[in-house]
């Protein structure tokens, strides 16, 4: 019988208001007991007196690229990158080839993960067939097949009528629409945040209003027509204000932010001499906007931290700034970056961090995850909040290296990742199948 | 660059006398020739050429035309210098063709500067002849180039430098020989 005893860790579980030095006993794949000084035999004992024991983290916004771009990422590599980043569950966006818009695609991801993956994958299906914004998908069938949410992600639905119908229709199934808010006409050919730095560099700009006008539209739509709206990766202060006000009057809306928008700004494009690992959508914004994001994170307007992990090969990124694809990887850097720049600097507590990276994603996605309640599946992440290290992309499990955090000195790391009672990642290494 | 010892080669009086002798020698050789001109090599060669012009005028009442040559772009050692010197204009207010030119510089050493100057003059036209006047010949030639008029000829080693100080540029008039305690550029 497989059992794990985690001893003397600081157990933090916002889902049950827990924050105490406790032992955690896992048997088979279930959390069996949380108490002081548990005296049981276990096949594995983890001394955790310097660690934080948290519910397994959930990244509700990733791109796994399989099927279609297996040179960038695969279910094999992507789930390992997730485990190395402390994530026990991830949601993958539908912009694969083919687009994930049918039962077959969902089943494909599930079967590949069963065969090759090491964490839970919850696929997100597209809102419209082929992500082209014209015809809504078979939501009911897709929910039944396992779609956790719906999103046209990088190709947001520009037609308000279609967005309205998607919200109205999906309200039957209590699934969220994950909304990448970007007015594609305003964003046009832009590649970086419109403003001072962009004006200096002469790169085509994406005005902040490209995001906030769409946030405003969709807040109105969900308020009028129902459904559940989750705004992806907000980046603009105006979006924070719109969402804060909407929440106050009870609109059914949640939102997320990425680690890179919380910690990096548009000036980095200039400082790095146009390094394409600063090119992302939404773009890195001005410091004033970033400060608004931090306030939104503090006061709970922003519910979730998600990575928007978007792998691209060096060959694709090693181009002129305008021609390089948008996107950064983030699963393996999220925890160190957030601990270093957001938690240790006092913006939020580690408890709030866990809430935004486990508790809230589970609540929004209606998952029986993100918790250490007795009887739930043992997905557990152990964090070493004081470990000092330097981010080195060569050590990543992801197939891609497009990170803006290369060489960053960090305080705080993932120590161990346990998925369904199995130690998947420990002390810098994915545990091999044989060892497991 | 730090220098330990320095010795005086010419004081102000000696410099004046040497220049006078140089001017006389040039005038003896070329005066009366309609096509006689002086060309100074920047920077000190120009000041010396002006002195010579004045001295020749005092003796002959005739003002010999002066040209200015900036040889920077013809140097063969640009790629070995830590930085490129500022390029200044060359001003030859006469047609070089068929002129009898006396090229003036302060010190002749390896001969490379004169090589560059000759190349440049040839790009301006075809002079009838070119002669060379220098204040100091310190020997150690690397090219087969010899001056026609010499103020003072001395023996030196590559570890020494000869400094010609002129009041228009340096505030005083004298020539000194300095020892370098480590290798200098050149």
């Amino acid at each position: 019988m497989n059992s794990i005893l985690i001893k003397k860790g600081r157990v933090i579980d916002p889902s049950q208001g827990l924050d105490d030095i406790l032992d955690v006993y896992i048997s088979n794949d279930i959390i069996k007991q949380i108490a002081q000084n548990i005296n049981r035999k276990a096949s594995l004992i983890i001394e955790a007196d310097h660690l934080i024991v948290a519910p397994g983290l959930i990244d509700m916004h990733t791109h796994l690229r399989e099927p279609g771009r297996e040179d960038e990422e695969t279910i094999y590599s992507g789930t390992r990158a997730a485990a190395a980043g402390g994530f026990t569950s991830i949601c993958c966006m539908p912009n694969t080839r083919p687009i994930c818009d049918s039962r077959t695609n969902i089943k494909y991801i599930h079967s590949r993960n069963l065969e090759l993956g090491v964490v839970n994958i919850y696929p997100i299906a597209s809102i419209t067939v082929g992500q082209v914004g014209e015809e809504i998908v078979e939501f009911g069938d897709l929910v039944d097949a396992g779609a956790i949410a719906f999103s046209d992600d990088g190709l947001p639905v520009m037609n308000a009528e279609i967005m309205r119908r998607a919200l109205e229709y999906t309200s039957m199934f209590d699934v969220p629409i994950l909304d990448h808010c970007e007015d594609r006409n305003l964003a046009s050919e832009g590649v970086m945040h419109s403003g001072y730095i962009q004006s200096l560099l002469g790169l085509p700009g994406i005005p902040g209003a490209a995001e906030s006008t769409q946030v405003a539209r969709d807040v109105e739509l969900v308020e009028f027509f129902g459904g559940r709206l989750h705004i992806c990766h907000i980046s603009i202060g105006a979006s924070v204000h719109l969402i804060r006000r909407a929440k106050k009057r009870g609109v059914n809306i949640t939102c997320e932010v990425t680690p890179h928008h919380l910690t990096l700004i548009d000036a980095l494009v200039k400082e790095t001499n146009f390094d394409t690992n600063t090119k992302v959508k939404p773009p890195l914004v001005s410091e004033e906007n970033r400060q608004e994001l931090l306030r939104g994170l503090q006061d709970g307007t922003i519910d979730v931290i998600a990575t928007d992990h978007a792998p691209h090969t060096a060959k694709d990124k090693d181009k002129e700034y305008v021609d390089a694809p948008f996107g950064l990887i983030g699963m393996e850097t999220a925890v160190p970056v957030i601990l270093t720049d957001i938690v240790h600097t006092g913006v939020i507590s580690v408890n709030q961090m866990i809430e935004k990276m486990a508790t809230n994603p589970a609540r929004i996605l209606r998952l029986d995850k993100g918790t250490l309640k007795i009887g739930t599946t043992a997905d557990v992440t152990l964090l070493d909040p004081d470990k000092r290290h330097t981010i080195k992309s060569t050590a990543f499990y992801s197939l891609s290296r497009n990170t803006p955090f290369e060489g960053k000195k960090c305080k705080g790391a993932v120590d161990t990742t346990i998925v369904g009672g199995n130690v998947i990642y420990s002390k810098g290494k994915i545990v091999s199948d044989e060892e497991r | 660059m730090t220098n330990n010892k320095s010795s005086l080669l010419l004081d102000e009086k000696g410099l004046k006398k040497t220049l006078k002798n140089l001017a006389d020698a040039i005038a003896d050789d070329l005066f009366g020739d309609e096509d006689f001109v002086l060309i100074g090599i920047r920077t000190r060669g120009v000041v010396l050429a002006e002195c010579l012009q004045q001295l020749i005028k005092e003796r002959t009442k005739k003002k010999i035309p002066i040209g200015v040559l900036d040889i920077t772009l013809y140097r063969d050692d640009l790629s070995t210098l830590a930085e490129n010197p500022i390029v200044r204009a060359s001003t030859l207010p006469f047609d070089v063709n068929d002129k009898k030119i006396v090229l003036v510089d302060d010190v002749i050493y390896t001969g490379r500067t004169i090589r560059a100057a000759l190349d440049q003059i040839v790009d301006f036209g075809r002079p009838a002849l070119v002669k060379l006047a220098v204040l100091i010949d310190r020997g150690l030639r690397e090219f087969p180039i010899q001056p026609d008029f010499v103020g003072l000829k001395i023996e030196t080693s590559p570890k020494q430098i000869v400094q010609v100080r002129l009041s228009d540029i340096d505030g005083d008039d004298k020539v000194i020989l300095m020892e370098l305690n480590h290798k200098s550029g050149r």
Partner: protein
Amino acid sequence: MIFQHKHLLTLEELSREEIELILENAKGFKEIFTRSIKKVPTLRGKTVVNLFYENSTRTRTSFEIAAKRLSADVINFSVSTSSVQKGESLLDTVHTIEALGSDFIVMRHSCPGAPQLLARRIKSAVINAGDGPHEHPTQGLLDAFTIKEMKGGFEGLNVVILGDITHSRVARSNIWALTKLGAKITIAGPSTLLPKSFARLGVRICTDLREAIRDADVINLLRIQLERQRKNLFPSIREYTLLYGLTEERLKWAKKDVLIMHPGPINRGVEISPEVADGKHSVILRQVTNGVAVRMAVLYLLSGGEEA
């Protein structure tokens, strides 16, 4: 004063002293144009490659003449004849060029930052001959050189840059150079083509032509491009000319000895009337001549220093 840079990518990164050094050298180079043999041996044996991803006969020719007058070998690598059209990446193309033995790569490219990408990855010295709307350093230098030649200096000078500032590399390089040298800059044109955040550079922003050019010592006009109209940045060329076209009549609003500059090619009758373009205030052709001297100075200064 030492010129420390291996590449010339922007004027933003140059100090006032470095810009002055280039201008001072350019003055020396301009004298060469008066000689019967307008060629010096300075860059003999060096190879300059003109890599132009956008057509620009003027800039390319200017660099070519500058390089040839320094005795460098010049190779023009234009996109239409190259493998670029076969989908070869910029870096692959440039690595090929370098393997052929280039010492300088002069590049015109539509993407801001493309020269920076090159400079990071190759050994040759990179000269930015215009990267999209970002910078066009040698144009900024030749404009500064021309102003200095005509006006003697920059202190207190009112320079107006008129036209599509948002999409202009010339405007950006001019702003960097001239503000560092002490001039006061006004940018003027339709509000859709003026980056408002440039106020942070100490630049005056003006949409009214009369207000903009009052007391102007220099008016630098930019070419107005038809493609901007297609993006609805202004309603029509006709309206642009009505509001901002520089005519002899309107020139009276500026100082009597105002200089009219234009990086070319000019649209006669659009941003500038033929009378103004050819009139006594115009130094447009002088700019072209000075461009060669400035580019010679840049090639010369970048060739300095010990081999890396």
